[in-house]
C-alpha cells in the first residue's frame, strides 16, 4: 500500500475542522436553514401591501348615520357606530384610533401621541368637511414610491446576513474550541510540535470556507423570492463578507480563549452578541439612538458590517466610500485574533 501523502498541518487542521462541522446536523440547520426561515418570515410580515384602514368609531346619536356614510367614503377609514360608553371603552383599549362624538358640532376624541390617531384626525375631519360641502381649491397628484432597494426587505436582508455571519462565526468557533478544551484535546495538541497559531487559523479558515455557502444561499434566496439585488460590485460584496466573517471568527476565538465550560462560553457570547443585535441596525436603523452613542455603535463590528453590506447592496457604494467600515472590520479581526492567541488557555 502506498504511503499516505503528508499534507501541511494547517491544511490538515482546516480539513479536520470542516469535516467536524459538516458532521454536526444541528450546526447545518443554524447556519444554512435558519437564516432562510427568518428571512422568509420577516419578508412575509413586512411584505408590500395597502396599509390597513384606520378603525374609527361614531357615537350613536341623531348624526351617526350621516357621519358614518361620510367616513365610509374615505379610502383609509373604517368607521363603525357605537353607543357612547362602549365607544370610549374601545378607544381606551386601542381598538379605535378616534371616536367622533357631539351633536351639530363634532367632537374628535383621540390620543394625540399615537401617529395613527393623528392620521385619523386629519382624515376624519377631511371626510366630514367634504360631506358638509367644503370644496377643495386645488387637486394634487400622487406618486407612490415602491422602488427596489428602498423597501424594508432591502434593509432587512443585509442586516440578517450580518447577523448570521456574526452568529455562525461566534458559535462555530466558540463551541468547538471550548469543547476541545474540555476533552483535554487542546492539552494533547500542545504536546505535539503543532504550531498554536495554526490551530487558531484553521478555525478561521473553516469559517471562511462555509461563509461562501452561507452567504450565497441567503443572497440567492433573497434575490429569487424578494428580488433583492446587489447594486454595487459583487467583488466588493464578497470582500466585505470575507472581512466580516474573519472579524467575527476573531471575536469568537477571543471569547472562547479562556472559558472552561460550555455554559461560560455561551454566556460570554450572548453578552457580546445581544447588544449588537439591538444596536447595530439588524432590524431597524440605529439612527434612532441618540447622537452621543452613535460613534460607539459605529465602532461595533456588526454595525460596520451591516453598514458596509447595505452600502454595497442598496446604495451601490464603491470601496472608497466604505473605507471606515472596512477598516473597522479588519481592526476587530486582527486585534481579537492576536489577543486571543496571546491569552489562550490550552489546558
Amino acid at each position: 500500500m502506498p504511503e499516505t501523502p503528508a499534507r501541511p498541518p494547517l491544511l490538515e487542521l482546516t480539513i479536520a475542522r470542516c469535516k467536524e462541522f459538516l458532521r454536526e446536523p444541528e450546526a447545518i440547520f443554524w447556519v444554512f436553514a435558519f437564516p432562510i426561515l427568518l428571512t422568509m418570515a420577516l419578508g412575509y410580515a413586512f411584505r408590500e401591501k395597502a396599509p390597513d384602514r384606520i378603525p374609527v368609531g361614531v357615537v350613536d346619536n341623531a348624526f351617526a348615520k350621516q357621519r358614518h356614510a361620510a367616513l365610509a367614503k374615505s379610502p383609509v377609514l373604517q368607521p363603525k357606530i357605537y353607543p357612547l360608553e362602549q365607544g370610549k371603552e374601545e378607544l381606551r383599549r386601542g381598538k379605535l384610533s378616534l371616536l367622533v362624538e357631539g351633536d351639530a358640532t363634532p367632537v374628535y376624541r383621540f390620543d394625540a401621541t399615537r401617529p395613527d390617531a393623528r392620521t385619523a384626525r386629519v382624515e376624519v375631519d377631511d371626510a366630514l368637511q367634504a360631506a358638509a360641502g367644503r370644496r377643495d381649491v386645488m387637486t394634487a397628484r400622487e406618486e407612490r414610491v415602491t422602488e427596489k432597494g428602498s423597501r424594508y426587505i432591502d434593509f432587512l436582508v443585509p442586516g440578517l446576513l450580518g447577523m448570521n455571519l456574526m452568529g455562525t462565526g461566534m458559535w462555530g468557533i466558540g463551541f468547538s474550541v471550548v469543547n476541545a478544551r474540555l476533552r483535554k484535546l487542546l492539552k494533547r495538541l500542545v504536546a505535539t510540535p503543532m504550531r498554536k497559531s495554526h490551530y487558531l487559523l484553521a478555525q478561521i479558515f473553516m469559517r471562511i470556507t462555509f461563509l461562501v455557502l452561507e452567504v450565497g444561499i441567503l443572497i440567492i434566496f433573497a434575490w429569487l423570492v424578494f428580488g433583492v439585488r446587489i447594486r454595487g460590485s459583487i467583488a466588493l460584496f464578497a470582500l466585505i463578507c470575507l472581512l466580516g466573517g474573519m472579524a467575527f471568527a476573531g471575536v469568537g476565538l477571543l471569547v472562547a480563549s479562556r472559558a472552561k465550560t460550555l455554559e461560560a462560553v455561551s454566556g460570554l457570547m450572548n453578552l457580546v452578541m445581544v447588544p449588537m443585535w439591538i444596536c447595530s441596525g439588524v432590524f431597524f436603523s440605529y439612527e434612532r439612538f441618540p447622537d452621543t452613542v452613535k460613534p460607539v455603535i459605529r465602532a461595533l463590528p456588526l454595525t460596520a458590517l451591516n453598514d458596509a453590506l447595505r452600502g454595497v447592496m442598496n446604495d451601490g457604494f464603491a470601496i472608497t466610500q466604505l473605507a471606515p467600515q472596512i477598516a473597522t472590520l479588519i481592526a476587530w479581526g486582527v486585534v481579537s485574533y492576536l489577543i486571543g492567541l496571546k491569552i489562550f488557555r490550552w489546558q
Partner: protein
Amino acid sequence: MTANGPAVSCRNLKKYYPDVKAVDGLDLLVERGECFGLLGPNGAGKTTTIEILEGLNTPDDGEVHILGMSWNEHGQELRERIGISLQETQFTDKLTVFETLRLFRSFYRDGRDPEVLLRELSLDEKRDSRNGKLSGGQKQRLAVACALVGKPDILFLDEPTTGLDPQSRLQLWEVVSRFREGGGTVLLTTHYMEEAERLCDRVAIVDHGHLIALGTPKELIAKLDAPHIIEFTSEPAIESDAFANIEGFHGATQRGGAWQLRVDSLAAAVPQVLGTIESRGAKLITLTTHAATLEDLFVAMTGRELRDA
C-alpha cells in the same frame, strides 16, 4: 539534534499546589531504551510528575532534562521527539480513526505511515469508524497510535490501561513491547502492579510526592525479605502479638479484618499459623497464600493499598 545524556532525568523536582504537595523533591533517571514505571496510588503525584516531564506543566523547583535537553530551550525539538498519551484525552467524536491519526501525523517533521500504524495496533478494521463509536480499549490504542505516529524516541504513557478489560490490556502491553524492541524508551505510570512487573525494567514507587522505593521489580520484592504472603481471617480476630514466634516471620499488616503475614517459607509457616489460631481459641474463616508482589511491598511500606489508598 542528538544530544547525549539519559532519556529522562530530573532532580529535586517540586510542585506545590495550595492544598497539596503534589511532587516533593523527586529525583528520577531513565536510561535510553529502558521501560520505567512510576507506581503509586491515586494522588501520589504520578500525573503531575509525568506532565512536568512532558513539558505540559512547569515545576516550582528542580531540573528536568529530556534527551539531554531542557523544555525552556528546546521545547519545539523535544515535542518532535516524544510521544504522549494523557490520562484522559477524548479525540473529536466526529472524526474517524484514520482522520485523527493523519491529523497528528501532519504535526511531525518525521513520522510513521498512519495506515501501517493502524495495522500494527489492530485498529485497521476501525479505520473509518468515528472516534465516538470506539470501545475503551480501541480509544486507548488510538491514543497510543497518536503518540507513536511522530516516531518518538520516548513514549510517555499516563495510566495507559486503567479501566480496560484484560484483553485490551494485553494488546497494549504488546504495543509497548514492540516499541521497545525498536530501541524506544518508555516511561509509564500505573497503579497496576502486574503491569509494572510485566513491562518495566525498573520501577519507582511514589507516595505523597516522594520516592519511597526504586529498583527492578525483582529487587523491590526482595526488599520485603519475605517471598511469600499468607492472608487469613478468623473469628474472632486475633491479636498481633500472636505471630512473633512463627518461623521465618517478617511482619504483618492488618487490612479490613484480614491479616497479611510476610514469611520466608509457606511450608514452615502455614501449619504454625493454623496452630496459633487454634491455640487462641479462634476459628479460621479464610486463608490464601501468594508469592510477594510490588503490591505487597507497597502495603508493607505504607500500610495502605495502592488501588484505594
